[in-house]
């Protein structure tokens, strides 16, 4: 029983333990009380409005995601006159859905303004009665907001005639273009490919003749499991023309995208990918590339000959094209429009005219303030100022389009580093007409790439088709969506990677798995909705 001899030691320890325990209880007490009356008012009598904000971990030095130029601007221009303290609640971008589900479940702690891109999640929240009905509030407090968004956009946030979400407005609807190494083509004295067949010949030549002197690591066609890299290819294999019934019932919306999984020709698309993969044309580890990181590295290291991507992605300062030219000053990327369907068209999916679904949880007591905040954002020059910064310092106006100053110092450009996540009512720069928006979209690219960017944006807007819309929610998509997204990825990856003689068996078994995991339920529900005529053309 030696341990008991050290009485003093014990006394000291019990003291510490007591302190720790007391601290523990206060923390616990703190937690439970903050839940019930979360953010009613601040000490100086201001009402607190909590707003979600995506955190991409890219705050520049001197700013934090909750305290930066834009948060200060909001509190000065909107907060002070309205006696509202706007506080931001950061949510990691990559886990927004999971975190949002947890926040919504926590009741009292949920921000007053939350949002998601996921239509299924919005539908589910609305149907479970978790969202504030904004119909009257919008009429009463949101005249500017209504004008800014327009009826067409607002309709995306309505369910059974009630406004449950404020959909953000998307400025640019075009999505994708493809890009090819012009210097490789020149070295091989080959023309820019214009059809899928020509592309195949070109890729084969890249592989065999290695014009870039890359060696065994050459990737003729850069691929990932992000839809941006495979969607153009897969849609181009869908056999047109489609009847309305086929269009509405045989595609499936998972998350915010229509997947052509059951449409005629989808299998041929996969078969083409399988062929490319087995002939060593695709990125070998594309199934591991969930965030395009590897794709970006391969492009900038000059290993990749061709890829499809969001039209703007390669061109930003510090993006893959600039880095590629740093590594190899002779490298040239040209935007091309190449995947051809059976009608000889280069069809491409485009975005729905809405962006985020902005929602006010039912548990929030600040719905009026929240609408006032969004309405303030839509009024006056607030969108312009928040997206572009200060005129004369960040940008100059030319023909009504803000042109970013290329020589603005970092501390000036850093002001608006997360404008996209702060200006939630807009997705992309909103300046005015569609054309002006497109110009602003191009103007944000460094000048040396603007000509290419213009071409790329033009391609992304050519022969596009809009997403499909039912005017009532397809419940099974909300229910099975995320699980099916996994199954879809699995189908694409596996069918691409198997040896050609096993392609059919693999495709059949994985499609069967997909269908029995919810795909069939979606098909049935869509067929029923179509027969009832519950769709908008």
């Amino acid at each position, binding site marked *: 029983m030696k341990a008991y001899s050290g009485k003093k030691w*014990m006394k000291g*320890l*019990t003291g510490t*333990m007591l302190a*720790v*325990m007391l601290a*523990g209880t206060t923390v*616990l007490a703190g937690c439970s009380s903050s839940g019930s009356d979360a953010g009613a008012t601040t000490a100086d009598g201001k009402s607190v409005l909590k707003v979600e904000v995506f955190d991409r971990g890219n705050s520049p030095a001197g700013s934090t995601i909750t305290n930066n130029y834009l948060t200060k601007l909001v509190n000065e221009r909107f907060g002070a006159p309205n006696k509202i303290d706007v506080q931001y609640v950061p949510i990691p971008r990559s886990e927004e*859905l*999971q975190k949002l*589900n*947890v926040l*919504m*479940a926590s*009741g009292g702690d949920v921000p007053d303004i939350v949002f998601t891109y996921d239509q299924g*999640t919005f539908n*589910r*929240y609305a149907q*479970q*009665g*978790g969202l504030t009905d904004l119909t009257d509030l919008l009429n009463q407090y949101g005249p500017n907001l209504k004008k800014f968004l327009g009826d067409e956009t607002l309709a995306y946030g309505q369910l059974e005639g009630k406004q449950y979400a404020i959909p953000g407005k998307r400025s640019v609807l075009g999505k994708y273009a493809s890009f090819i190494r012009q210097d490789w083509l020149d070295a091989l004295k080959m023309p820019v490919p214009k059809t899928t067949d020509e592309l195949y010949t070109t890729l084969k030549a890249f592989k065999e003749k290695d014009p870039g002197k890359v060696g*065994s*690591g050459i*990737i003729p066609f850069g691929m990932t*499991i992000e839809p941006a890299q495979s969607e153009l290819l897969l849609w181009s294999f869908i056999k047109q023309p489609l009847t309305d019934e086929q269009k509405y019932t045989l595609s499936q919306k998972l998350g915010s995208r229509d997947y052509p999984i059951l449409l005629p020709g989808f299998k041929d698309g996969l078969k083409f990918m399988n062929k490319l993969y087995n002939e060593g044309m695709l*990125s*070998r*580890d594309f*199934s*591991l590339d*969930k965030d395009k990181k*590897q794709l970006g*590295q391969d492009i900038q290291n000059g290993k990749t000959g061709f890829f499809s991507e969001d039209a703007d992605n390669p061109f930003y300062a510090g993006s893959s094209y600039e880095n590629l030219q740093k590594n190899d000053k002779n490298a040239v990327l040209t935007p091309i429009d190449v995947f051809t369907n059976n009608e000889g068209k280069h069809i491409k999916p485009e975005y729905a005219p809405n962006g985020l679904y902005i929602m006010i949880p*039912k*548990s929030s007591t600040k719905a009026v303030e929240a609408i006032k905040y969004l309405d303030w954002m839509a009024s006056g020059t607030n969108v312009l100022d928040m997206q572009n910064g200060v005129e004369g310092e960040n940008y100059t106006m030319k023909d009504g389009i803000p042109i970013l100053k290329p020589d603005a110092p970092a501390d000036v450009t850093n002001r608006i580093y997360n404008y996209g996540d702060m200006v939630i009512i807009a997705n992309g720069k909103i300046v005015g007409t569609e054309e002006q928006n497109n110009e602003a979209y191009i103007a944000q690219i460094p000048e040396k790439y603007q000509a290419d960017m213009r071409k790329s944006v033009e391609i992304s807007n050519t022969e596009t088709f809009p997403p499909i819309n039912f005017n009532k929610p397809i419940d099974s998509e909300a*229910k*099975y*969506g*995320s*699980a099916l997204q*996994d199954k879809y*990825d*699995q189908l694409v*990856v*596996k069918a691409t*990677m198997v040896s050609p003689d096993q392609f059919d068996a693999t495709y059949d078994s994985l499609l069967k*798995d997909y269908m*029995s*995991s919810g795909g069939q339920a979606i098909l049935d529900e869509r067929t029923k909705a179509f027969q009832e005529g519950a769709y908008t053309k």
Partner: protein
Amino acid sequence: MKTSTYLRRYWQLYFLLILPLAYFAIFKYGPMYGVQIAFKDFNFFQGINGSEWIGWDGFREVFQNQDFYRTLRNTLMLNILDLIVSFPAPLILAIMLYEVKALWFKKLSQTILYIPHFISWVIIGGIVYQVFGTQSGFINNLWVSMGFQPIPFLTDPNYWLITYLLTGVWQSAGWGTILYLAALTGINKELYEAAEVDGATRMRRIWHITLPGLRPTIITLLIINLGNMVTIGFERPYVIGNVAVQEYSDVLSTFVYRIGLESGQYTLATVVGLFQAVVGLIFVLGANFAAKKTTGEGIL
């Protein structure tokens, strides 16, 4: 001694016990209130009390879901393989370390062996990609430069299993030696001396003295491990797994994550959790019973 005097004399010890007890009450017993979600059509805007009872419907839905069986199979498979590959590793390492005579070398190797335990799985995942990838991994680069075909360590299910298991050994074996090394210090040194005098070789000494000395520890750890057969950590299969090997890497924890946190079907996620707990309990009790029958030692 009367109980009251006993309590008064050693009150500090009982006081110390409050903290761990509070921990269990708050974090282990408190959440059990939520188990009822498994029997309710849980709508988190209505709360647990506001949601309607649905009886066994949630269980029916889970047991009809083929993904549940696939993930259950994978969980058991990965755990059993892990038990075979990873369980003996720290034991062997600990015995080897114990036999090392140079103290500095022993300390150094112990430290080096512990380090992987403190690296998060996310980082290990990054390392694994860099080492084993077919296009950018350095093992394959070496392999290909020697003129061989690349080995799909991460994208072929069978190769992936090996990668998964060996990464697990690398990460946890060093840390696992701690318990064994502690137990080894409890073995009477005189036994070794006597054996040496009697002419027992090193292997004989390990076989007849070290291993029997470790038996209670081995059995305890084995029972705990068996109790965890149907539960599996989330990070390792999630981070090291990928779409191409999902037929093996998709386990109960990733399944729960998907249906619970991603799709918001909390009822189904709770059903799976409850199922895991019940099966885990059966495994622990069964293993304990078997251990008592065969060796006379158990933990309960």
